[in-house]
Structure formats: C-alpha cells, structure tokens
C-alpha cells in the first residue's frame, strides 16, 4: 500500500471514529474488495464471507475511535480484524460437515485448495511493502513456505495442513514453527 493511500485510510478511519458516515462509506468502497477477498479465500463460502465482512465493518465502525495510527497501518489493522473473525468462524463445532453443508460437493473440501498456487506469492513480489516478506518467504524451505502460506491464505489448521500435505502432524507443526522463526529472523535483518 503506497503512503498516500495509507494516509488517506488513516484519515478515513479517524473520521469514522468521529462517526462520519460519509467517510465510512468511502472506507468501505476503498477496502471491501480486498477484505472480502481475504475472507472468501479463508472461508471458501460466499455466504459466510458476506456475514463475516458485515460483522467486521460494523466492528470497524464501532472501534474506529480506538484505532491508533502509531500502532499499525490501517490495512494491517482491518485485515487482522477480518482474519481473526474468519478463524473464530472456522472454530465452530461440526466444521467437518460445515465445510460443505449444502452437500453440493462431495469431494474433500481441502482438495479444492490449489496445492501449489503461486498466485498470491507472485503478486507480492511486485508490491512495495510486501517485497521484504516475499523475499524472506523465498528463503524458506519449500515445505515450510507452503505450510505457512496455506495456513495464512486458506486458514488451514495444523491437522488440515497435515492432511492436505499428506505428512504427519508433528512434521507439519515443525515446518510451521521453524518457518515462522526463520521469517522473524529474516525480516529483522532486511
């Protein structure tokens, strides 16, 4: 996100904190497609993603006054709200059934996830503030990178990762943990 856009979103959030509905409409217009994309990618169902998005924007409206620009960039703050809400959503009971509640698709829902989808990562390399992260991800072992990106983009849990990557649970947990440790080290030095 470029600094100008960043600044604009900060101002819009500040105005939302003062209950300016026009600013909120503009904020929605500028950010909802990205956040809906994030929710849809994790939840895999439009109706769920729509509900989560609604709740998140109501929450953003209610808490905009608490947003502090010094704490995090606006998009980081809003993305975290959406991701957390999605992950809480996935924590509901009966998830195995709920992943495909309409019974339209009898295949394993995890099969729908592209296994080596380079899309999001490729795009990152061209975005300024994501370059460092893309570079650091590039330095991870392939399996570590795959586990971390599947968890982040698709909201997979350890056991889902294990089943998707056809590896023992312990192995996958280690990949995630080591990958995160290395990312932290790498990002600290770039």
């Amino acid at each position, binding site marked *: 996100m470029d600094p100008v856009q960043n600044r604009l979103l900060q101002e819009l959030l500040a105005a939302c904190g003062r209950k300016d509905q026009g600013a909120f*409409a503009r904020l*929605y217009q500028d950010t*909802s*497609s*990205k956040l*809906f*994309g*994030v929710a*849809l*990618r*994790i939840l895999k169902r439009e*109706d769920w993603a*729509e*509900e*989560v*998005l*609604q*709740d998140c924007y*109501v*929450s953003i*409206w*209610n808490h905009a006054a608490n947003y502090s620009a010094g704490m*995090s960039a606006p*998009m*980081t703050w809003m*993305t*975290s709200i959406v*991701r957390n809400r999605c*992950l809480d*959503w*996935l*924590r*509901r*009971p*009966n998830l195995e*059934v*709920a992943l495909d*509640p309409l*019974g339209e698709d009898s295949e394993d829902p995890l099969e729908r996830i592209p296994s080596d989808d380079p*899309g*999001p*990562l490729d795009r*990152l390399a061209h*975005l300024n*503030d*994501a370059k460092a*992260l893309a570079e650091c991800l590039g330095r991870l072992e392939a399996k570590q990178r795959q586990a*971390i*990106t599947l*968890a*982040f*983009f698709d*909201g*997979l*849990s*350890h056991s889902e990762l294990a089943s998707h990557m056809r590896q023992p649970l312990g192995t996958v947990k280690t990949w*995630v*943990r080591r990958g*995160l440790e290395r990312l*932290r080290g790498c990002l600290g030095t770039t």
Partner: protein
Amino acid sequence: MKYRDKPELQEKLAAEFVLGTLRGRARLRFQTWLRNDARLRGIVSEWERRLAPLAAGVDEVRPPQRVWRSIESRIADGGSARPRGGFWESTAFWRGWGLVATGCAAALVAALALQQPQRIEVPVVQTVETPAQVAMQPAYVAILYAKEEGEKLVFMAYAARKSNELWVRRVDLQKPPTGRDYELWGIPSKPGERPQSLGMIPAAAKATLKLPGAADETLENFSVLVISIEPIGGSKTGSPSGQVVAKGDCFKFW
C-alpha cells in the same frame, strides 16, 4: 500464568495466533491472555505487521451490494455487533443476553396468561377447563425478540410441563429470505453443549411442534431459544449455521 516467564513460548503462540494455526481451546485461552496482557498484544501486533502484507497478494473480490446495505442499516441503529464465530459453544453468552429480556418477558407472560388466557390462545389442554386453571398449568414458556429492529416481540413458544407438544405462535416474524427457512433451537444451559434443533418453524401464525420428549425432559435443558435462518429442511451442520434473527429466555412458568 506460566507463559509470562517464557518469551519463546509467547513468541511462538503469538506467531501461530496471527498465522491462524493456533486453534480450539488454545486459541480461546490465548485470546483471554491477550485481553489482560499489553505486552503480549505488542508481540501479536509485531506479527501482524510482519505477516499482514501477505494479504496484499490475495485477489480482490467485490462483495455484493447487499453487504453494504446491511452494514449501513446496522450502523444506523447504533452498530449492533452480532456475535459470531465460536459463540455457539458459549452458552454463557446466550444466558447473559437473555437475562436482559427476562424481567419484561416474565411480566408480559404473567400479564397475558393470568388476565387474558384466551386472547393469547394458550393451547387447550383437555384436562384444563377454566382460564384460572390454564394459568396454573405448569409450563415452559419462551418469548423471543428480534435481534435487530429494536428487539420487538416476534415469537412465542409454550409447552405444558408433561406434554411433548410445543405450541408456537409467530407474532411478528418476517418471511424468511427466498429459498431459506426458519429453524428453532434450544441453547443448553450447560456450558459446552451443542444447540439442539426443535424443528422448522411452520409458515402458519400458529402451529404445534413435536418435542422429542416431555417438556420437562427436553425444554428443561435449555436456557434460551433462538431462531436462525437455514436452508430449506434445516441446518445441514446440526447447529445453527445462518443468521440468528430472534432469541429469548426459555423459563419455567410455575
């Protein structure tokens, strides 16, 4: 709390929380710690800052217009934040929520049942002859209010204590969205127990649902009843899967 003395553990948990691999009870516990620990929140923010740029790589998808319309109407009436995600496990939440309405509901039922039993059409139980006895009949009663639209009374349910017939009355329940239906649920009093379906709500203003057993064995377990929007024929997940439109305490009336 042991985690406080373990910076490496804090770092690992924060990272996995942000990444999303911290799940289930571990996630809930971590969220509790977060509420009370500013330092831990700082570590989480750091990880959000590190990983959030990943989201920039996700395809943008324009949400349907109805999403904005719905957000607009919700912030217009004070930004009612509907609880979401994981809250089905939290019967404490429902109990707390229902308490607010209990006082008025009890007063209302008392007024209706004692003063004008015929007008609320308390189901005619064969052994009951007079209005006074109708009012005395031990029963379970639930009064459900709209979750939005200013918490108006939308639905009532009544079952005599020994009966397995749940008498329901739609007071002011809008039609469900096209291709969807309303399902009635009992939210158990015991924490951790799943909501239980009490059946689909018939379109008629008044109807009777069959309970799986006598009310004092079935409704006895629920502190709250809710209505959710579900696919025709009912939720496929065994739990409420769509928006909750109404809720209210289920209480003994004797």
